[in-house]
Protein backbone atom coordinates (compact mmCIF):
# COMPACT_ATOMS: atom_id res chain seq x y z
CA UNK A 1 0.00 0.00 0.00
CA UNK A 2 1.41 3.39 -0.99
CA UNK A 3 1.58 5.82 1.94
CA UNK A 4 0.46 9.44 1.66
CA UNK A 5 3.25 11.98 1.49
CA UNK A 6 3.28 15.25 3.37
CA UNK A 7 5.67 17.75 1.86
CA UNK A 8 7.11 20.26 4.33
CA UNK A 9 8.09 23.49 2.59
CA UNK A 10 10.12 26.44 3.89
CA UNK A 11 7.64 29.05 5.18
CA UNK A 12 10.35 31.71 5.22
CA UNK A 13 13.61 32.53 3.47
CA UNK A 14 16.62 31.86 5.67
CA UNK A 15 19.47 29.55 6.62
CA UNK A 16 19.09 26.05 8.03
CA UNK A 17 20.87 26.05 11.37
CA UNK A 18 20.10 22.49 12.42
CA UNK A 19 18.19 19.44 11.26
CA UNK A 20 16.71 17.60 14.24
CA UNK A 21 15.55 14.40 12.49
CA UNK A 22 17.04 11.70 10.26
CA UNK A 23 15.52 9.63 7.46
CA UNK A 24 13.48 6.81 8.98
CA UNK A 25 12.68 8.66 12.22
CA UNK A 26 9.11 8.47 13.50
CA UNK A 27 7.71 11.92 14.25
CA UNK A 28 4.56 13.09 15.97
CA UNK A 29 2.51 16.10 14.90
CA UNK A 30 4.20 19.20 16.37
CA UNK A 31 7.69 17.67 16.72
CA UNK A 32 10.54 19.99 15.70
CA UNK A 33 11.98 18.93 12.34
CA UNK A 34 14.58 21.65 11.85
CA UNK A 35 15.42 25.25 12.63
CA UNK A 36 15.67 28.07 10.10
CA UNK A 37 17.45 31.28 11.01
CA UNK A 38 15.76 34.30 9.52
CA UNK A 39 15.55 37.94 10.61
CA UNK A 40 18.08 37.12 13.36
CA UNK A 41 15.65 34.62 14.89
CA UNK A 42 15.74 30.84 15.26
CA UNK A 43 12.48 29.55 13.85
CA UNK A 44 11.44 25.95 14.55
CA UNK A 45 9.70 24.12 11.71
CA UNK A 46 7.25 21.56 13.10
CA UNK A 47 5.92 18.31 11.73
CA UNK A 48 2.42 19.01 10.37
CA UNK A 49 1.45 15.32 10.69
CA UNK A 50 2.63 12.17 12.47
CA UNK A 51 4.59 9.77 10.27
CA UNK A 52 8.01 8.66 9.12
CA UNK A 53 10.68 10.96 7.73
CA UNK A 54 11.07 9.68 4.16
CA UNK A 55 13.38 12.29 2.69
CA UNK A 56 15.44 15.26 3.86
CA UNK A 57 16.23 17.70 1.06
CA UNK A 58 18.30 20.23 3.03
CA UNK A 59 21.37 20.30 5.22
CA UNK A 60 22.90 22.53 7.87
CA UNK A 61 23.95 26.02 6.73
CA UNK A 62 22.01 25.71 3.47
CA UNK A 63 20.12 28.83 2.40
CA UNK A 64 16.48 28.16 1.55
CA UNK A 65 13.80 30.27 -0.15
CA UNK A 66 10.13 30.38 0.78
CA UNK A 67 8.46 27.38 -0.83
CA UNK A 68 11.57 25.18 -1.09
CA UNK A 69 10.92 21.55 -0.13
CA UNK A 70 12.61 20.75 3.19
CA UNK A 71 11.41 17.34 4.30
CA UNK A 72 8.97 14.70 3.10
CA UNK A 73 7.00 12.75 5.69
CA UNK A 74 5.16 9.52 4.89
CA UNK A 75 1.99 9.08 6.87
Amino acid at each position, binding site marked *: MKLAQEIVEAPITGTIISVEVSVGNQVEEGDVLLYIESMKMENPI*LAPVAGTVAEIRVSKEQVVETGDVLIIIEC
Partner: protein
Amino acid sequence: MIGPLQTGFGALSWGNAVLICVGLVFIGLAIVKKWEPYELLPIGVGMLLANLPGTGLLVQPHEVGGEFGSAGILGVFIEFGLLRYTILPQLIFLGLGAMTDFSPLLANPRLLLLGAAAQIGIVIAFFGALALGHFGIADFGLMEAACIGIIGGADGPTTIYLTSQLAPELMGITAVAAYSYMAMVSIIQPGIIRALTTSKERKTYMKPQIRKVSKAERIVFPIVCIVLVILLVPRSAPLVGMFMFGNLLRESGVVDRLSDVAQNALMNIITIILMLCIGASMPGHLVMRPETLMVLALGLVAFACGTAGGVLLGKLMKVVSREPFNPIIGAAGVSAVPMAARVAQHIGQQENPRNFLLMHAMGPNVAGVIGSAVVAGAFLNLLG
Protein backbone atom coordinates in the same frame (compact mmCIF):
# COMPACT_ATOMS: atom_id res chain seq x y z
CA MET B 1 25.82 66.00 51.37
CA ILE B 2 28.46 63.39 52.14
CA GLY B 3 31.68 64.47 53.80
CA PRO B 4 35.15 63.42 52.54
CA LEU B 5 35.58 60.72 55.19
CA GLN B 6 32.02 59.41 55.17
CA THR B 7 30.65 56.34 53.38
CA GLY B 8 27.40 56.35 51.45
CA PHE B 9 25.54 54.03 53.85
CA GLY B 10 24.17 56.81 56.03
CA ALA B 11 22.79 58.73 53.07
CA LEU B 12 21.02 55.74 51.55
CA SER B 13 17.23 56.23 51.59
CA TRP B 14 14.56 53.52 51.43
CA GLY B 15 13.71 54.68 47.94
CA ASN B 16 17.35 54.26 46.90
CA ALA B 17 17.45 50.78 48.41
CA VAL B 18 14.27 49.72 46.60
CA LEU B 19 15.57 50.96 43.25
CA ILE B 20 18.96 49.32 43.79
CA CYS B 21 17.04 46.06 44.29
CA VAL B 22 14.96 46.73 41.14
CA GLY B 23 18.20 47.42 39.26
CA LEU B 24 19.64 44.13 40.48
CA VAL B 25 16.45 42.31 39.36
CA PHE B 26 16.78 43.89 35.90
CA ILE B 27 20.43 42.80 35.67
CA GLY B 28 19.40 39.30 36.80
CA LEU B 29 16.56 39.08 34.26
CA ALA B 30 18.90 40.21 31.50
CA ILE B 31 21.67 37.74 32.34
CA VAL B 32 19.71 34.71 33.59
CA LYS B 33 16.46 34.94 31.61
CA LYS B 34 17.95 36.82 28.63
CA TRP B 35 14.92 39.18 28.69
CA GLU B 36 15.76 42.20 26.53
CA PRO B 37 19.37 42.05 27.75
CA TYR B 38 20.54 44.91 25.55
CA GLU B 39 18.10 47.20 27.33
CA LEU B 40 17.59 45.77 30.80
CA LEU B 41 21.28 45.25 31.62
CA PRO B 42 22.37 48.90 31.11
CA ILE B 43 19.07 50.17 32.59
CA GLY B 44 19.75 48.07 35.71
CA VAL B 45 23.30 49.40 36.01
CA GLY B 46 22.01 52.95 35.49
CA MET B 47 19.57 52.42 38.38
CA LEU B 48 22.38 51.16 40.61
CA LEU B 49 24.68 54.07 39.82
CA ALA B 50 21.93 56.68 40.19
CA ASN B 51 20.84 55.40 43.59
CA LEU B 52 24.22 55.07 45.27
CA PRO B 53 24.57 58.31 47.22
CA GLY B 54 27.32 60.88 46.92
CA THR B 55 28.69 59.84 43.53
CA GLY B 56 28.06 63.10 41.64
CA LEU B 57 27.40 61.07 38.51
CA LEU B 58 24.02 62.69 37.97
CA VAL B 59 25.18 66.30 38.27
CA GLN B 60 24.19 68.05 35.05
CA PRO B 61 26.41 70.77 33.53
CA HIS B 62 23.77 73.50 33.95
CA GLU B 63 23.64 72.73 37.69
CA VAL B 64 27.33 73.63 38.09
CA GLY B 65 27.29 76.71 35.88
CA GLY B 66 28.29 74.84 32.74
CA GLU B 67 31.49 73.48 34.33
CA PHE B 68 31.88 70.22 32.45
CA GLY B 69 34.61 68.97 34.75
CA SER B 70 32.32 69.20 37.75
CA ALA B 71 29.41 67.45 36.03
CA GLY B 72 28.91 63.68 36.18
CA ILE B 73 29.01 61.52 33.07
CA LEU B 74 25.38 60.47 33.44
CA GLY B 75 24.35 64.08 34.04
CA VAL B 76 26.13 65.14 30.84
CA PHE B 77 24.41 62.39 28.82
CA ILE B 78 20.99 63.18 30.31
CA GLU B 79 21.25 66.94 29.84
CA PHE B 80 22.61 66.94 26.32
CA GLY B 81 21.19 63.69 24.99
CA LEU B 82 17.70 63.84 26.41
CA LEU B 83 16.62 67.03 28.11
CA ARG B 84 18.20 69.83 26.10
CA TYR B 85 18.53 68.38 22.59
CA THR B 86 16.75 64.97 22.69
CA ILE B 87 19.14 63.49 20.16
CA LEU B 88 19.50 60.00 21.66
CA PRO B 89 16.01 58.62 20.85
CA GLN B 90 16.25 60.10 17.35
CA LEU B 91 19.58 58.40 16.70
CA ILE B 92 18.12 55.12 17.98
CA PHE B 93 15.36 55.53 15.41
CA LEU B 94 18.00 55.93 12.69
CA GLY B 95 19.47 52.57 13.71
CA LEU B 96 16.05 50.93 14.02
CA GLY B 97 15.15 52.10 10.53
CA ALA B 98 18.34 50.58 9.16
CA MET B 99 17.46 47.29 10.89
CA THR B 100 13.84 47.14 9.72
CA ASP B 101 12.64 45.15 6.74
CA PHE B 102 9.33 46.57 5.54
CA SER B 103 8.79 43.76 3.00
CA PRO B 104 6.09 41.96 5.05
CA LEU B 105 4.12 45.21 5.25
CA LEU B 106 4.65 46.10 1.60
CA ALA B 107 3.62 42.60 0.50
CA ASN B 108 0.28 43.09 2.23
CA PRO B 109 -0.31 46.81 2.89
CA ARG B 110 -3.70 46.29 4.56
CA LEU B 111 -1.73 45.03 7.59
CA LEU B 112 -1.00 48.72 8.22
CA LEU B 113 -4.53 48.90 9.65
CA LEU B 114 -3.61 46.45 12.42
CA GLY B 115 -0.64 48.61 13.37
CA ALA B 116 -3.00 51.58 13.59
CA ALA B 117 -5.68 49.72 15.59
CA ALA B 118 -3.18 48.69 18.25
CA GLN B 119 -2.59 52.36 19.03
CA ILE B 120 -6.02 52.46 20.69
CA GLY B 121 -4.29 51.50 23.93
CA ILE B 122 -2.50 54.87 23.88
CA VAL B 123 -5.80 56.72 23.61
CA ILE B 124 -7.48 54.68 26.38
CA ALA B 125 -4.58 55.19 28.81
CA PHE B 126 -4.42 58.88 27.86
CA PHE B 127 -8.05 59.39 28.88
CA GLY B 128 -7.57 57.14 31.92
CA ALA B 129 -4.71 59.33 33.14
CA LEU B 130 -6.73 62.48 32.42
CA ALA B 131 -9.61 61.06 34.46
CA LEU B 132 -7.28 60.36 37.41
CA GLY B 133 -6.06 63.95 37.16
CA HIS B 134 -9.58 65.33 36.78
CA PHE B 135 -10.83 63.60 39.93
CA GLY B 136 -7.78 64.71 41.90
CA ILE B 137 -6.49 61.15 42.40
CA ALA B 138 -3.16 61.94 40.70
CA ASP B 139 -1.38 65.05 39.56
CA PHE B 140 -1.75 64.27 35.85
CA GLY B 141 -2.51 66.94 33.25
CA LEU B 142 -2.63 66.71 29.45
CA MET B 143 1.18 66.48 29.12
CA GLU B 144 1.56 63.70 31.66
CA ALA B 145 -1.44 61.81 30.26
CA ALA B 146 0.08 61.84 26.76
CA CYS B 147 3.40 60.48 28.09
CA ILE B 148 1.65 57.74 30.08
CA GLY B 149 -0.54 56.79 27.12
CA ILE B 150 2.41 56.47 24.75
CA ILE B 151 3.72 53.55 26.86
CA GLY B 152 0.98 51.57 25.07
CA GLY B 153 2.87 52.09 21.82
CA ALA B 154 5.38 49.58 23.23
CA ASP B 155 8.16 51.56 21.71
CA GLY B 156 10.90 52.66 24.09
CA PRO B 157 12.56 55.44 22.05
CA THR B 158 9.16 56.98 21.16
CA THR B 159 8.18 56.99 24.84
CA ILE B 160 11.49 58.57 25.82
CA TYR B 161 11.28 61.19 23.09
CA LEU B 162 7.74 62.29 23.89
CA THR B 163 8.27 62.31 27.65
CA SER B 164 11.47 64.33 27.41
CA GLN B 165 9.54 66.91 25.40
CA LEU B 166 6.31 67.08 27.41
CA ALA B 167 6.93 65.84 30.96
CA PRO B 168 10.66 65.24 31.61
CA GLU B 169 10.06 64.47 35.29
CA LEU B 170 8.23 61.28 34.22
CA MET B 171 10.92 60.16 31.77
CA GLY B 172 12.55 57.50 33.92
CA ILE B 173 9.36 55.82 34.97
CA THR B 174 7.61 55.88 31.55
CA ALA B 175 10.72 54.57 29.81
CA VAL B 176 11.28 51.82 32.37
CA ALA B 177 7.59 50.88 32.09
CA ALA B 178 7.79 50.75 28.28
CA TYR B 179 10.94 48.60 28.23
CA SER B 180 9.72 46.36 31.05
CA TYR B 181 6.42 45.66 29.32
CA MET B 182 8.24 45.06 26.04
CA ALA B 183 10.42 42.54 27.85
CA MET B 184 7.31 40.89 29.29
CA VAL B 185 5.38 40.79 26.02
CA SER B 186 5.42 36.99 26.00
CA ILE B 187 3.79 36.98 29.45
CA ILE B 188 1.25 39.78 28.94
CA GLN B 189 -0.06 39.09 25.44
CA PRO B 190 -0.93 35.36 25.25
CA GLY B 191 -3.73 35.56 27.86
CA ILE B 192 -5.31 38.54 26.08
CA ILE B 193 -5.04 36.85 22.68
CA ARG B 194 -6.59 33.62 24.00
CA ALA B 195 -9.38 35.47 25.79
CA LEU B 196 -10.42 37.30 22.63
CA THR B 197 -10.14 34.49 20.07
CA THR B 198 -11.54 31.01 19.66
CA SER B 199 -9.31 27.99 19.20
CA LYS B 200 -10.66 27.71 15.63
CA GLU B 201 -9.58 31.29 14.88
CA ARG B 202 -6.09 30.73 16.33
CA LYS B 203 -5.71 27.57 14.24
CA THR B 204 -6.48 29.43 11.00
CA TYR B 205 -3.76 28.60 8.49
CA MET B 206 -2.36 31.49 6.47
CA LYS B 207 -0.35 30.69 3.38
CA PRO B 208 3.32 31.70 3.61
CA GLN B 209 3.84 35.10 2.14
CA ILE B 210 4.91 34.57 -1.44
CA ARG B 211 4.59 37.95 -3.12
CA LYS B 212 8.10 39.12 -3.76
CA VAL B 213 8.51 42.80 -2.89
CA SER B 214 10.63 44.55 -5.51
CA LYS B 215 13.70 46.61 -4.69
CA ALA B 216 12.01 49.67 -6.19
CA GLU B 217 9.08 49.30 -3.77
CA ARG B 218 11.44 49.01 -0.82
CA ILE B 219 13.33 52.15 -1.90
CA VAL B 220 10.26 54.25 -2.69
CA PHE B 221 8.45 53.38 0.57
CA PRO B 222 10.70 55.28 3.03
CA ILE B 223 10.86 58.28 0.70
CA VAL B 224 7.06 58.41 0.34
CA CYS B 225 6.70 57.96 4.12
CA ILE B 226 9.07 60.83 4.84
CA VAL B 227 7.11 63.20 2.61
CA LEU B 228 3.54 62.08 3.31
CA VAL B 229 3.71 61.30 7.02
CA ILE B 230 5.66 64.44 7.86
CA LEU B 231 3.30 66.61 5.79
CA LEU B 232 0.42 65.02 7.67
CA VAL B 233 1.98 65.19 11.16
CA PRO B 234 4.95 67.61 11.01
CA ARG B 235 6.08 67.02 14.60
CA SER B 236 6.57 63.32 13.87
CA ALA B 237 9.57 64.36 11.72
CA PRO B 238 12.32 63.76 14.31
CA LEU B 239 11.28 60.13 14.72
CA VAL B 240 9.71 59.23 11.37
CA GLY B 241 12.34 61.18 9.42
CA MET B 242 15.25 59.43 11.12
CA PHE B 243 13.53 56.04 10.98
CA MET B 244 12.89 56.28 7.26
CA PHE B 245 16.33 57.75 6.58
CA GLY B 246 17.86 54.72 8.30
CA ASN B 247 15.65 52.44 6.22
CA LEU B 248 16.69 54.17 3.01
CA LEU B 249 20.36 53.64 3.93
CA ARG B 250 19.55 49.93 4.14
CA GLU B 251 17.38 49.57 1.05
CA SER B 252 19.21 51.88 -1.35
CA GLY B 253 22.01 49.34 -1.66
CA VAL B 254 24.58 52.03 -2.44
CA VAL B 255 25.76 52.97 1.07
CA ASP B 256 26.42 49.62 2.68
CA ARG B 257 29.04 51.07 5.04
CA LEU B 258 26.63 53.68 6.37
CA SER B 259 23.86 51.12 6.72
CA ASP B 260 26.22 48.81 8.58
CA VAL B 261 27.30 51.57 10.97
CA ALA B 262 23.70 52.63 11.62
CA GLN B 263 22.61 49.05 12.33
CA ASN B 264 25.57 48.03 14.45
CA ALA B 265 28.19 50.46 15.76
CA LEU B 266 25.97 53.54 16.08
CA MET B 267 23.02 51.56 17.40
CA ASN B 268 25.18 49.85 20.01
CA ILE B 269 26.83 53.05 21.21
CA ILE B 270 23.54 54.93 21.49
CA THR B 271 21.89 51.95 23.20
CA ILE B 272 24.59 51.92 25.88
CA ILE B 273 24.27 55.65 26.55
CA LEU B 274 20.48 55.89 26.29
CA MET B 275 19.74 52.86 28.48
CA LEU B 276 22.18 54.02 31.16
CA CYS B 277 20.41 57.40 31.13
CA ILE B 278 17.00 55.76 31.47
CA GLY B 279 18.12 53.71 34.46
CA ALA B 280 19.73 56.80 35.95
CA SER B 281 16.47 58.76 35.51
CA MET B 282 14.91 56.65 38.27
CA PRO B 283 15.98 58.44 41.45
CA GLY B 284 14.90 56.90 44.76
CA HIS B 285 12.28 59.48 45.74
CA LEU B 286 10.16 58.42 42.73
CA VAL B 287 9.23 55.04 44.21
CA MET B 288 7.73 56.71 47.26
CA ARG B 289 5.12 58.51 45.11
CA PRO B 290 1.75 56.84 44.41
CA GLU B 291 1.85 58.41 40.92
CA THR B 292 4.67 56.04 40.02
CA LEU B 293 2.47 53.01 40.60
CA MET B 294 -0.36 54.67 38.67
CA VAL B 295 1.96 55.28 35.70
CA LEU B 296 2.99 51.62 35.76
CA ALA B 297 -0.64 50.46 36.03
CA LEU B 298 -1.88 52.77 33.26
CA GLY B 299 1.04 51.74 31.06
CA LEU B 300 0.01 48.12 31.49
CA VAL B 301 -3.60 49.04 30.65
CA ALA B 302 -2.36 50.83 27.52
CA PHE B 303 -0.29 47.84 26.46
CA ALA B 304 -3.13 45.38 27.11
CA CYS B 305 -5.72 47.53 25.32
CA GLY B 306 -3.37 47.97 22.36
CA THR B 307 -3.02 44.20 22.09
CA ALA B 308 -6.79 43.80 22.33
CA GLY B 309 -7.40 46.52 19.72
CA GLY B 310 -5.12 44.78 17.23
CA VAL B 311 -6.71 41.37 17.82
CA LEU B 312 -10.26 42.73 17.56
CA LEU B 313 -9.53 44.46 14.24
CA GLY B 314 -7.88 41.19 13.17
CA LYS B 315 -11.18 39.44 13.87
CA LEU B 316 -13.00 41.99 11.73
CA MET B 317 -10.46 41.55 8.93
CA LYS B 318 -10.96 37.80 9.15
CA VAL B 319 -14.66 38.32 8.42
CA VAL B 320 -14.12 40.54 5.39
CA SER B 321 -11.01 38.82 4.03
CA ARG B 322 -11.33 36.50 1.03
CA GLU B 323 -8.21 34.56 2.05
CA PRO B 324 -7.98 32.72 5.42
CA PHE B 325 -6.90 35.29 8.01
CA ASN B 326 -5.61 34.55 11.51
CA PRO B 327 -6.64 37.41 13.84
CA ILE B 328 -3.86 36.85 16.36
CA ILE B 329 -1.38 38.65 14.11
CA GLY B 330 -3.21 41.85 15.12
CA ALA B 331 -1.57 41.62 18.56
CA ALA B 332 1.78 42.35 16.88
CA GLY B 333 0.52 45.84 16.02
CA VAL B 334 1.73 47.14 19.39
CA SER B 335 5.32 47.38 18.05
CA ALA B 336 7.75 45.68 20.47
CA VAL B 337 9.63 44.49 17.37
CA PRO B 338 10.10 41.58 16.93
CA MET B 339 8.90 40.12 20.24
CA ALA B 340 5.20 40.71 19.63
CA ALA B 341 5.46 39.09 16.18
CA ARG B 342 7.17 36.11 17.79
CA VAL B 343 4.33 35.76 20.29
CA ALA B 344 1.80 35.58 17.44
CA GLN B 345 4.03 33.10 15.62
CA HIS B 346 4.45 30.95 18.74
CA ILE B 347 0.75 30.80 19.59
CA GLY B 348 -0.24 30.18 15.97
CA GLN B 349 2.25 27.34 15.61
CA GLN B 350 1.28 25.87 18.99
CA GLU B 351 -2.36 25.69 17.89
CA ASN B 352 -1.60 24.42 14.40
CA PRO B 353 1.89 23.08 13.55
CA ARG B 354 1.35 24.01 9.89
CA ASN B 355 1.05 27.65 10.79
CA PHE B 356 3.95 30.02 10.31
CA LEU B 357 2.66 33.50 11.07
CA LEU B 358 5.96 35.30 11.67
CA MET B 359 6.12 37.16 8.37
CA HIS B 360 2.41 37.97 8.48
CA ALA B 361 2.84 39.33 12.02
CA MET B 362 5.91 41.39 11.10
CA GLY B 363 3.66 43.57 8.89
CA PRO B 364 1.54 44.98 11.74
CA ASN B 365 4.63 44.88 13.96
CA VAL B 366 6.63 47.37 11.86
CA ALA B 367 3.44 49.32 11.09
CA GLY B 368 3.05 49.72 14.85
CA VAL B 369 6.41 51.50 15.06
CA ILE B 370 5.28 54.02 12.47
CA GLY B 371 1.88 54.25 14.19
CA SER B 372 3.25 55.06 17.64
CA ALA B 373 5.74 57.59 16.19
CA VAL B 374 2.87 59.32 14.38
CA VAL B 375 0.74 59.37 17.55
CA ALA B 376 3.71 60.88 19.45
CA GLY B 377 4.02 63.52 16.70
CA ALA B 378 0.28 64.23 16.94
CA PHE B 379 0.60 64.72 20.72
CA LEU B 380 3.49 67.12 20.12
CA ASN B 381 1.47 68.99 17.48
CA LEU B 382 -1.43 69.37 19.89
CA LEU B 383 0.39 69.89 23.19
CA GLY B 384 4.01 70.77 22.52
